[in-house]
């Protein structure tokens, strides 16, 4: 019983809003209207996330899943390699990261970097 309470308390602490209310994580695809990736030059790719409304943006911006270290983990990178930009006015977030191979070099599998958003599609925020 004590162990169960401990688990419950921890999960609630991880999922608190600013108001201190517990929230249930939702699939990011329910909150976002656009999740896209593209090269920003041949050495870097950038992911743009546009959310449906201010509440969806706020939930995503606060979520553990979209912190730099979590995003880095999705891509096998270090947190220091992920730049995160918040654009609350347009309910958007940008994540910029290094490409694994220079665009178009032998071994590259995504010249435009247009499919590198895929690891984020299964996030719960």
């Amino acid at each position, binding site marked *: 019983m004590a162990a169960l309470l401990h688990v419950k308390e921890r999960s609630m602490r991880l999922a608190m809003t600013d108001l201190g209310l517990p929230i249930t994580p939702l699939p990011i695809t329910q909150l976002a209207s656009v999740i896209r990736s*593209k*090269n*920003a*030059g*041949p*050495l*870097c790719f*950038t992911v*743009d996330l*546009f959310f449906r409304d201010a509440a969806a943006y706020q939930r995503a911006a606060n979520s553990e899943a979209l912190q730099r270290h979590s995003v880095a983990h999705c891509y*096998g990178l*270090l947190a*220091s*390699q*992920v*730049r995160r*930009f918040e*654009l609350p*006015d*347009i309910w*958007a977030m*940008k994540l*910029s*990261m*290094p*490409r*694994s*191979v*220079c*665009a*178009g*070099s*032998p*071994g590259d*599998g*995504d*010249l*435009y970097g247009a*499919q*590198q958003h*895929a*690891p984020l599609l299964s996030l719960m925020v």
Partner: protein
Amino acid sequence: MIADLQVTAVSHLLASHRPGAERLRVLSAAGQLGFGIVQASFALGIQRRPHFIGCDMGSIDPGPYYLGSGQMAAPQAMVRRDLELVLLAARQLNVPLIIGSAGTAGARPHLEATLDLLREIAIKHGLSFRVATVASDVPRHLLVSATQDGRLQALDHSGAALTLPVPDEAQLLSASHVVAQCGTDTFIGALKQMPDVLIAGRSCDTAIFAALPQMLGYDAGLALHMAKIIECTSLCCEPGGRDAILAELGPNDFILESMNPKAHATPSSVAAHALYEQADPWLAEEPEGTLDLHMARYVALDEHRTQVSGAQFFERPCPTLKVEGAAYEGARAVLLAGVADPTMISVMPRALDEVCERVRSLVPGTWTMVPHLYGQGAVRALPAHQKSQYEMGLVIEFLAPDASTAKTVAAVFKQNLLHFGFPGRLTTGGNLAFAFTPSEIDANDCYRFVLYHLLLGVQPEDVFRIDVQTWNFEEVMA
């Protein structure tokens, strides 16, 4: 009759337009000239009597092949069609036509090929006009001396970019083409030659649209922000598209209006566009300084148009140039096949290694094999549980010093992989499924980027070569 070439489209605009008296109407006709300008929206743009027409024609995005080989990415017939459309309109209105990043990658062969097409069109229609050109190829000795004293540097120090090593002297000299992106100041230098048409090699997209406004006295931050948005035509609209877009620039703001009545420039669609293909949504580096969008404001004028203001430009003391270079890697052949046998799928990495070893003893030479295992993480790294067990798409690249060797390796490799034996093999009829023959294909030459760096401490006029020529083809018609 010989046209009066003393008064050109640029000299007329500079003499007749006064900021504040009326807005400067800038028509962006193409974000990728040569892939088909949408005629209806372009015609609507022309009806608005723009003060000048600009087109972007290139990018680094299509990859190193185009810069390396000197080929255009756009099909020649479509480039001719688009050039004809914009040239005839500009000459009829007698307004400047400005084209940047000629022929995709903007090196000498791209510039020449674009000029050849333009000349062909001018002859066909009996046109006379003055053409200024900017060649963006970087003299190699400038690069070599820059590497010696550390003036060739990584572009991005944030950690969010892959590191491309600074090439050594031999690599610099062996690169097929090296270009730098010329900026607004270089465009201004070319426009001071008073042309009717300006065709520039590799260019900053912004320079195409920001140079004339700055010559007329408009604010650099506003002009660059406008340029940055409209170089992609109506991509900043909702829904985004490739239709021409009109910007009306005033002393304190600019107004965006797609020439497609169904594509609306809204404050959020325009603000969102600042993120597109940019690592940083707020700061954009130009050769002459930094464009800062932190203070940018977007206001709806109506449901179709948005008014933009607030961008700032901070000049840097010495210009910096972004340089791009591609080097020949080899000739490429590819092998295409599918696999449906789960055991073969599971042993594929080992099979490729073993077959590679076997083929090396059959085909000598310095060839390399680069596999792409679709369904197994060819597009991005996949966790084991997401890898497909039941079907695999196999694309194998073979790179060799010449096309014949590459094709030979591909064919021999194919046959050996088809009949590769492994413990537990049930599929003794063959390991691969081919959709067509030949299933090994000659896939052009392979290039790689060896330069995507910042070049410091050089004067743009030492890099970019401005030329001007007067074409008079009216007599040819007569």
